């Protein structure tokens, strides 16, 4: 029994993690022969989407309700990872991977680092006043309702037939060096500035 209880999480996490591998055909051996990649719009994709959405929203809710900052960071990891899965489902492999590297590999570590450097006691909790919670809840609920109303009722101009032959990496490369050259360079300058600024602000007097 104990072995099963211990091993079960692996199975579950693994199945969730490799979900897109089932749902989306990212296999290039076909697409190089001109067969279009596509989410095959079947049962499995729906299943995977619902699983991802459940993880995203569940962990988001957990972040809202949790009081412990480190746990919030872990839930955030759940959110980020499953958002990356959603990118895979949306055929945006590159963005998904970048999400994993930058957010899960970099930003999250940074957050936890900040927590470790700035928390006095292991479980530091700041609790907020109840009326604040209520107000926030009401406002956000209203906001959510309005946005959902818009999202559901709006008429989006769609061309649902996704035609992607081969990889979109070349598109990325060309795009970043032609149409998006200026934002790209600006981004690099910004990163430099941020690096200097962060080092300056976090320095020891």
């Amino acid at each position, binding site marked *: 029994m104990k072995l099963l209880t211990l091993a079960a999480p692996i199975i579950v996490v693994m199945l969730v993690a490799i979900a897109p591998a089932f749902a989306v055909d990212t296999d290039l051996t076909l697409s190089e022969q001109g067969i279009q990649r596509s989410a095959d719009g079947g049962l499995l994709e729906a299943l995977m989407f619902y699983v991802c959405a459940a993880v995203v929203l569940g962990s988001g809710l957990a972040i809202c309700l949790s009081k412990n900052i480190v746990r919030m960071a872990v839930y955030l990891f759940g*959110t980020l990872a499953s958002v990356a899965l959603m990118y895979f489902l949306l055929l945006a492999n590159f963005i998904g991977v970048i999400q994993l590297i930058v957010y899960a590999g970099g930003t999250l570590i940074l957050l936890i680092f900040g927590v470790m450097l700035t928390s006095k006691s292991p479980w530091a909790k700041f609790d907020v006043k109840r009326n604040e919670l209520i107000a926030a809840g009401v406002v956000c609920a209203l906001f959510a309702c309005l946005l959902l109303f818009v999202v559901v009722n709006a008429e989006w101009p769609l061309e649902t037939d996704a035609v992607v032959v081969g990889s979109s990496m070349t*598109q990325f490369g060309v795009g970043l060096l032609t149409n998006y050259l200026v934002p790209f360079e600006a981004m690099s300058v910004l990163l430099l500035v941020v690096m200097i600024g962060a080092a300056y602000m976090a320095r020891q007097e």
Partner: protein
Amino acid sequence: MFEIGLTHYLVVATLLFVMGIFVMITKRNAIGILIGVEMVLNGANINLVAFNRYNGMSNIDGQITSLFVIVLAAAEAALAVAICMNFYKNLNTVDVDHGDTLAG
């Protein structure tokens, strides 16, 4: 129900976005607010990529924009953590409610 379309993703994105705002409002820990910001950015990103995919994927403008958003988010996180540490250095806490010395 089993035919996943644009709206499904938009709904998820919206909820994530609003949750992010809720986190920003209700967390008193500076890092917590940062986490809220990241959630908001992710919600926006899902929108970008979803629109890009459901408009035929003839180009990848949405994806590139979301790429820039991600990079900006990383930069912003680095800076924000530095600010938090400075905050902690000055006020000896990360409770943002103590940062109200300019309040009238």
